[in-house]
């Protein structure tokens, strides 16, 4: 073929689109496969190539700046543009890494939790969800965001509904309603922006919007986009769909969603509000920081508190997720480079820790079928590797040094202290909630290690195909906790880009 002669050169130029096309084309193929295993391995292959592409893209962006890809050869804003800067390259790597780890993990887990004839469809939905999230992240077109948002959401509803308890159905339904409302709000917001500027291209909008900043329409658009995205990212008090959705979904789905979906929503928030509207508009005109700060604080405190009293460990971690989202938003509300660095770092770090934790719980479900805290008594002896993974993940969640959680906390507190004055109280609150995290994590650890197993049937350790991916994430928790220079460097660069905005 034409491109064959200059093979590598061509492929690198096509990386942005391949990032999404590869999993998206794998999905329909999965759907028509007969054997679950075949679909599973196709999905694994796709998810690994996605990670390779994401890493290559990050390399490209770090070496040569923004990569713009014109789909259909139409020059933006006429056509749709894929636009990769360090911010979304970073988020792509996060999503892709989790995908690459969770997919092989799901092979055994899914066979255990889902009826065999649905497995090919499961992988189709899973890949659709993955490519939807990647598409939201990579695109430079507002409406394209909506389209891919719906791809990921629809498949997510289906994936969640596959959980065994019937409450998975109502959780999925609730998520569908709230998610659709969120998406519709986003569509309204996009429409209002479009009517004022005539453009849907993000970079283009960033240039056009300053001309119409004063209009009420733009401000209302801002509000609608904000509410819509916050519904998707489950920011308190719009989080009601999340706990049950995470608690009752199949294990790999929970691990995947918890580590990626809300991260991408946070990315949307950052991209829309800081790049497109511009940091200046967001912080000076719309007082975004002052709106988000109290919400974030309430989220962190109240949800940590609620988590302490949960008996279902999956739900406990789900509430913890809402609290952790609060940390991310808190970093944003500092309106500073350090604060944003904390947010962007925590996107990655939280993905690692929650991924590891939910995957460890998946191992527990695989063996004992329950994650009730009483059912986990004595598990430390019976499933030592699984519970060790949980402990490390838990320590990371608490923010113990040498884990990624600590790095996030460090930057968050540093960001608060840099602002000085009353912000010290915010730093204190972050630390106090870390102690709350210690309490809820420790309840589980105590049950597993210091209580005796009451049942009689012996339980073995989870199979290697579940443990290995789990431990990959656990190792990542430790590795990036010990060597965070690179991750923090990327996060900081991304934060600087966001604060500067696309236009400048």
């Amino acid at each position, binding site marked *: 073929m*034409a491109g064959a002669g200059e093979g590598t050169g061509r492929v690198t130029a096509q990386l942005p689109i391949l990032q999404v*096309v590869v999993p998206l084309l794998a999905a329909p193929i999965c759907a028509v496969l007969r054997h679950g295993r075949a679909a599973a391995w196709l999905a694994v292959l796709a998810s690994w190539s996605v990670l390779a592409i994401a890493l290559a893209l990050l390399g490209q962006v770090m070496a040569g700046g923004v990569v713009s890809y014109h789909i259909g050869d139409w020059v933006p804003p006429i056509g749709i543009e894929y636009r990769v800067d360090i911010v979304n390259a970073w988020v792509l790597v996060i999503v892709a890494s989790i995908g690459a780890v969770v997919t092989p993990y799901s092979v055994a887990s899914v066979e255990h939790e889902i009826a065999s004839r649905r497995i090919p469809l499961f992988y189709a939905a899973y890949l659709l969800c993955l490519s939807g999230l990647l598409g939201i992240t990579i695109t430079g077109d507002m409406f394209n965001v909506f389209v891919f948002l719906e791809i990921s959401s629809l498949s997510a509803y289906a994936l969640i509904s596959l959980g065994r308890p019937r409450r998975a159905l109502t959780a999925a339904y609730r998520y569908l309603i709230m998610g659709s409302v969120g998406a519709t709000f986003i569509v309204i917001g996009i429409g209002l922006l479009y009517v004022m500027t005539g453009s849907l291209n993000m970079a283009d909008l960033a240039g056009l919007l300053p001309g119409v900043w004063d209009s009420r329409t733009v401000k209302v658009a801002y509000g609608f986009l904000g509410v819509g995205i916050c519904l998707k990212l489950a920011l308190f008090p719009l989080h009601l769909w999340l706990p049950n959705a995470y608690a009752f979904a199949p294990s790999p789905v929970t691990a995947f969603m918890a580590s990626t979906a809300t991260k991408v929503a946070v990315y949307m928030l950052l991209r829309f509000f800081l790049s497109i509207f511009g940091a200046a508009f967001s912080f000076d005109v719309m007082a975004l920081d002052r709106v988000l700060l109290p919400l974030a604080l309430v989220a962190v405190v109240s949800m940590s508190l609620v988590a302490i009293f949960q008996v279902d460990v999956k739900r406990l971690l789900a509430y913890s997720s809402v609290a952790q989202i609060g940390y991310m938003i808190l970093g944003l509300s500092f309106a500073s480079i350090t604060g944003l660095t904390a947010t962007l770092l925590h996107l990655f770090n939280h993905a690692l820790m929650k991924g590891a934790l939910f995957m460890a719980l998946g191992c527990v479900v695989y063996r004992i079928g329950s994650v009730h805290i009483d059912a986990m008594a004595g598990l430390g002896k019976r499933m030592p590797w699984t519970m060790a993974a949980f402990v490390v993940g838990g320590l990371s969640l608490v923010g113990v040094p040498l884990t990624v959680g600590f790095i996030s906390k460090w930057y968050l507190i540093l960001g608060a202290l840099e602002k000085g004055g009353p912000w010290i109280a915010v730093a204190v609150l972050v630390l106090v909630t870390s102690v709350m995290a210690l309490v809820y994590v420790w309840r589980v650890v105590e049950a597993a290690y210091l209580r005796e197993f009451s049942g009689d049937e012996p339980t073995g350790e989870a199979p290697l195909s579940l443990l290995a991916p789990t431990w990959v994430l656990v190792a990542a928790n430790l590795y990036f906790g010990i060597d965070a220079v690179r991750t923090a460097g990327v996060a900081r660069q991304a934060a600087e880009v966001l604060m500067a905005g696309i236009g400048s």
Partner: protein
Amino acid sequence: MREEIIVRVGAKILTPFIIMFALYVHFHGDYSPGGGFQAGVILTAAFALLALVYGLAAVQRVLPPWFTRLCAALGVVIYGGVGVVTMLLGHNYLGYDALAQDPKYGQHYGILLVELGVLVTVFGVMASVFYLFAGRGRSES
């Protein structure tokens, strides 16, 4: 039971219109309103109403569920495949100019192909979904 009658009568009246609509929409997409999507939906609507009137089993004999499921997936692959082909031809994804010497012809071919993809998927999806809804009540009663 009154509702049943309404449905039957409504279906009978609507069916010819719908099929006419579908054909028109499908073949005139470039020149007048319509295209693969509308055609796919309308076509399915026709089948759906037929199924309501003549029974699901009769329709499924002509149009088995595995086939509609295949269609649903196939359309996506056709559409995406066009993009892959243009990429292999050295253009960007969905750069139809690559498909012929004259870019305009390339665009025509491209649009034709992707509209076909849309039609196939939409038809396959709508029919599959309809089968599932319509078939569910029956399977065990």
